[in-house]
């Protein structure tokens, strides 16, 4: 660490704030990766990894990632629910790392539902 200036204070604030923003409860989207036994068996772990990678690469802080158990549609796993704040949740099915990236860029960043992978609303 080196001596800093007033300008540096602001830079540190912005950088660290991005990392810690999720402690403050404001977010643009909530992504739920279904991680029941079926989900994990079908590859949900890889989906999660690629999602976290995308978020880091995009440098955004206001996407909340959570997990949930089996949704009852085991044959459609790995599944993913994307809930943009103020919009209806969209459930995506049979996701892999590649689809995950498209959904991230298209839906979460772009705001366009990727209906080719979507299973249902709600």
């Amino acid at each position, binding site marked *: *660490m080196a001596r800093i200036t007033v300008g540096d*204070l602001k830079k540190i604030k912005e950088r*660290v704030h991005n990392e810690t923003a999720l402690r403050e409860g404001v977010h643009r989207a909530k992504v739920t990766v279904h991680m029941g036994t079926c989900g994990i068996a079908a590859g949900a772990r890889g989906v999660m990894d690629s999602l*976290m990678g995308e*978020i880091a690469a995009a440098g955004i802080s206001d996407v*909340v990632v959570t*997990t949930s158990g089996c949704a009852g549609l085991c044959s459609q796993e790995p599944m993913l629910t994307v809930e943009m704040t103020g919009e209806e949740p969209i459930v995506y099915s049979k996701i892999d790392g590649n689809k995950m990236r498209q959904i991230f860029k298209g839906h979460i960043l772009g705001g366009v539902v990727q209906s080719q992978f979507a299973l249902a609303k709600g």
Partner: protein
Amino acid sequence: MKVFRSHLLLCGGTGCHASGSQAVKAALIEQINKKGLGEEVKVVETGCNGFCAQGPILVVYPEGVVYMSLKPEDMPELVEEHFIKGRIVQRLLYREPLSKEVIPAMKDIPFFALQELRVLRNRGIIDPEVIDEAIARDGYAGMAKALTEMTPEAIIKEVLDSGLRGRGGAGFPTGLKWKFCSQSPGNIKYVICNADEGDPGAFMDRSVLEADPHAVIEGMVIAAKAIGSSHGYIYCRAEYPLAIHRLNIATAQAREYGLLGQNILGTGFNFDLDIYQGAGAFVCGEETALMTSIEGKRGMPRPRPPFPALSGLWQKPSILNNVETFANIGQIIHKGASWYNSIGTEKSKGTKVFALTGDVNNIGLVEVPMGIQLGEIIYEIGGGIQKGKKFKAAQLGGPSGGCIPAAHLNTPVDFEKVTELGAIMGSGGLIVLDEDKCAVDVARFFMDFVQEESCGKCPPCRVGTKRMLEMITDICNGKGKEGYIEKLIELGNSIKDTALCGLGQTAPNPVLSTIRYFRDEYEAHILEKRCPAGVCPELVRAPCQNACPAGVDVPGFVSLVGEERYSEGLKLHRERNPFAEICGRICFHPCESKCRRSSLDEPLAIRQVKRFMTGMEKEPLLPEFRESEINATRKIAIVGAGPAGLSCAYFLARLGYKPQVFEAAPRAGGMMVQTIPEYRLPRQVIEKEVKMIENTGVKINYGSRLGRDFTLLSLRDQGYEAVFLGVGVPYGSKMGIPGEDLIGVTDAISYLREYNLTGKAPAGNNVVVIGGGNAAIDAARTALRLGAKEVTLLYRRTRFEMPAWAEEIHEAEIEGVKLNFLVAPIEAVSLNGRVSALKCAKMELGDYDRSGRRRPVAVKGKDFEVKADLVISAIGQYLDEKEIFAGLNVEMNKSGYVKVDPLCARTSVEWLYAGGDVTVGPSSVVEAIAWGEKAAVGIDQALTGTDNAFWRKEKVLDTFFDPEADPIDAKRAPLLNLSLSERMGNFKEVEKALPAASAVCEAKRCLRCDYRAES
């Protein structure tokens, strides 16, 4: 940058460390790594989260879910469930103490939701050992502004305008202190932070230092710029190793960033600070003593003036502020004075941090806006008193402060108000005391502390506090003499006026304030040698016995039952209370609520043990009676054959008197026979014990009514030397609403009396009972038994405030009584002269009243009607002075009852004694019994000039007790009741006696608090 999907903030304050948060952290990290979540989930150790009693605490973001009281073995489940499967682990969540509701999110828990976080804004959110996290939340932004944009004058003006007052206790305006110092001549000045927090139970400063040390450093740099200082000290007690550790890390990181040291932020301003570890002397929290201590000398205060602003550390101009004060400064500069003073009261702005401890459910650190009601802190944030006990007082300000009793729960907490009530804001220790705490003992504790910590420099403090402690210790030990209270006040006031420093000047406060509010307790200790709260060991043989108004030897008869020696147990019981069988049925057992077994599992079922014991009685068993030919000739009249009158007669008879009892009703027993329903107290039980008393030479004259057949004066004319008045408060109070005189509207006393004396009473189809006491429940259950289709009980407060006994409320509900809370009657609606409905208002709880309960207030526009053909009000009772006294002038007390000497029950008329409800208002059978005994002793003493109450001498117990043995492992015996079908439509006794085996087992659960090792 590394993004994690979840941040787990684990509390790492001293409190949570002590409850094991480091082991939890290790287990948590191990599990996270084991499950391969290390790259997704981040664990951060924070400073104190505030909810210390529930620690270790883990807050999970982004959900904001808070887990409490964690143990390392919970971690596998927590990680598996929450972080893999996304399911919240219910059993580890917060549970609301009163409603038992589970609340997952931190923001929804009242303890957190109602706080206003400014000083503690970063607590539990940042890692205090990472400076970047503090900067991310505007750390050092105020300092940057002060150093780059503001002159010293502008800084001082901003702080002055903010209205910030010193948080160390005295509340001196911070800006003013700085102004004085800035104007003092000299090039060398010092900024000192007082982190020598020493009040028992206070830990605000420690938590700030542990959770957000940078806020304090920032405040000090700003102060340095304001007064022109280049060096500072943080004086922190060595008992705070974690705070010192984090301060050291924080100062090192700040220096690396150039936020401390030379040329701060490139502005050319220089300031650095040292951390000075204090050895823990309480007096070193006093500013001049603290500075003397930094100078390397023995920490003792010196007279002021000169004030430190002129001549402080090393005789240089210095400012000394408390940790919390400095922690406010950065934000005041960053956000402006008007932001800061937007909350608070006229003279106290901003927030105050309190260390909330004692007998409150939610123990921890809370930050609240100035001006918040004391009741809100205790009941909303604090979650009320533990184990549903009553609030007695809040001790504010530690050894320099005082108590605020229940009558002042509405008090807006700010510097002025708190001082007005005899306490001080102090550094913010707030100790909640419940009904089981003794005011004298609390005062003794603080006096002891102050006396121990007195530095000895000035005689008022050194010698004066010692004398005060001696007197108060004497009082606690039952050796207090009359006049001690006045001496304490006089000495206390002169110490206040003459002691050298703040410690000495405030030292008498805890004593003076407890005398102010709890003088009756001091008097009970001194005059009656009694500790009402059951605390002072010299005055309390066992808490149960102490709690019994009649002073029944509870451990005695219980242990005798444990050895199946029932006759001896009964005799022992009747030494102090003749109505063993009656009390075995209906006593509200104050003994059980003080039973120490409750700290182990549940209190002993003392009443049920007694009930069983009386069931084993064949012939009435009586203790010692003493014949006296002289006493037998003396004429004593007793008016009223209720529990007070009969008890008075019984104890007089034991001294050889032959008192005459005058009773208006055809049956003896008073309220016991007239209002208490048969299903709780079978009539043959009353008859048996009344007969037992009659057989001891007491004559009861039935149908002889005071005011009709005789007057008190006519008794006197007939030669009665003393008269005891035990007529109770016989009339049910009116509601004072329109329609009250309609047919079908009555009061509970009249209704119950009508049924109990005549065997008949109207049942009604839709019965509405108004009130929340035992009379209300009795009336409701009686109406139900008489055939009412529906019985609804309306109460203006909530279930938690109901004065009726919990068991009774529970049984009433089982039997079908509907309880409707927060409802008050406004009008009885008439149909052809009969009541047809009751118009009601919906209530909500408002401010606290003098009893410490929230006062119900009507909600506008929410009135409604309840169908009713019988309305029974049970809202209180009154007595008719004219009827009782008929021209005799007797002094009444403030509550409108007969005033008596609490020791001997004598009224303002020399020959007239009174006791029971007539002197204290509607209370209980056992209290009436106690009054009867007191009056009997008083009368005998007046007639003979000596104290002959031989039964008051403690009996030596010969029951076996092994103090080494573990308490027997048995649960409290459950109540055995008739089934619903067995009890409906009749007045059969609902409760059944315990079987012999479980009664004996229950008796053996007694911990024998009466036991003293033989010396």
